[in-house]
């Protein structure tokens, strides 16, 4: 008996690390400071991000919006010489705790970048990239996932006949929606979008809003 209960508790699956409490905000930031080398880019940021809502960050250019977003999926640590202070709780767990795997964080907190950055692969392979990383190999499931993601990003109708052509042949706006579809295909719990519409046509925000409505996700723009 004792043994059984112990083994049930002991192996803490990475999936279980971020336990969902529906009432709690999905992200809480407390006293966050961030440095690029000696330069302090963020000072004392406190905020909460509600579940199932679209949250927008606004501010003049250069004020640290992108830096902040990139902290939420640990992209900044790819830049040498950066340092984080304070707490950044995602589902109650500090993202910067030593035991937290950045790869796991990025699978659950998706990101769309300011500039469209599709891979030089086919449209299909761009969207299937994430699911394949998850180990999804079965063609039917992949097809389904690709179609659903592209529909969510309001791109399906435009590309359904050219799925196996290069993504680089798409227009800038289409490429950006493809990047959104690519992020959606990972079924992230939070989708970070760094001014995804700055250079683009008006449909992505509408598309991503519709996507957020029928899933339990939070979006930051």
């Amino acid at each position, binding site marked *: 008996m004792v043994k059984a209960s112990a083994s049930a508790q002991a192996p803490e699956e990475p999936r279980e690390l971020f336990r969902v409490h529906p009432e709690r905000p999905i992200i809480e930031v407390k006293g966050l400071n961030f440095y690029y080398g000696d330069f302090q880019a963020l000072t004392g940021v406190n905020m909460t991000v509600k579940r199932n809502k679209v949250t927008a960050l606004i501010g003049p250019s250069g004020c640290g919006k992108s830096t902040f977003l990139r902290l939420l*999926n640990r*992209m900044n640590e*790819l830049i*040498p010489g950066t340092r984080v202070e304070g707490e950044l709780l995602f589902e109650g767990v500090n993202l910067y705790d030593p035991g937290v795997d950045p*790869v*796991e964080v*990025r*699978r*659950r907190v*998706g*990101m769309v*970048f300011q*500039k469209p*950055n*599709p*891979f*030089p*692969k*086919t449209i299909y*392979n761009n969207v299937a*990239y*994430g699911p394949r*990383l*998850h180990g999804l190999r079965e063609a039917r499931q992949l097809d389904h996932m690709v179609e659903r993601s592209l529909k969510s990003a309001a791109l399906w109708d435009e590309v359904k006949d050219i799925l*196996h*052509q*290069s*993504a*680089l*042949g798409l227009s800038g706006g289409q490429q950006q929606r493809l*990047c959104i579809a*690519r*992020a959606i295909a*990972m079924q992230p719990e939070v989708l970070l979008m760094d001014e995804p519409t700055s250079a683009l046509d008006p449909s992505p925000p509408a598309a991503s809003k519709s996507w957020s409505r029928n899933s339990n996700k939070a979006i930051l723009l």
Partner: protein
Amino acid sequence: MMQIPQAQAITGSRVPAMAAAPLTKRKVTSTVREARIRRVFVAAGFFSVIIMGLIILFLFKEGLGLFSTVSVKDFLFGEFWYPTYDPADFGIFPLIMGSVAVAALSSAMAVPLGVGAALYLGEVASHRTREILKPAVELLASLPSVVLGFVGMVVIAPLMQQWWDIPTGLNVLNASMMLAIMAIPTIASISEDALHAVPRDLMEASLALGATRLETLTRVTIPGAISGMGTGVILGMSRAMGETMVVLMVAGGAAQIPTSIFDSVRPLPATIAAEMGETPFGSEHYHALFAIGIVLFLLTLGFNLVAAYVSRRFQQKGAATL
């Protein structure tokens, strides 16, 4: 008063405009100077092309003379190279095989090491390590080949003889090792540049989708850099193929078809270098050495064409190839 010359200029009239004379004059001198500078650049650009053309012309003029007495087939596939016998044999098949053996074995050593070094420098090493190591790798390329030949001859060859109890340490393996050392920096440096040229955006996109660094490397970075890496590999191999001094010093110089990596061989460039000084001008042997030069030229040209093809074919533009 001032408007008249302007109007003339616009309509293209060639009547000299007095009022605008200073301006016009300066314009003329600057176009003259520009034309002069242009000519200098054109001359500089064509200089190497012309020299190259002349060398090829000379090579073919001297080399093709051989084929009035020896058939192309006997030359390329003849199994005996006895240029000073009477009657002489001018079969370069053993020499070609010597070159091929040395180039193949050295590539087998240099490609994994060179690509591995590039991956380490480009993806694994910290910024500071990279700043130190990359120039060091490139310095290896500037090592004079005669020094490498010296090392192979004086250090490696006796060791090989001792370790494996073989008649000579001057053999395919030794030459390949020295050539690999020469090819590694070329391969590593060009491959690393290619890896470095893959846009950071793409790697970030991959990482943001929850790919590990290894997954990003194998699925995004390497496919993006494969054309440059292929070019580096082929140029490195072509360098090993044309290299003379090392093979002259350490390949052993026996004109035989190698059957093991411990056989001595006599690659094409070593043959030319060794024999050109002793052959009478205009003799059959002399022409045969130039004919070898043609073969060597065509081989390295082939390598370079393949390199150019690879770099174009695998460029990630237009239709997706991944």
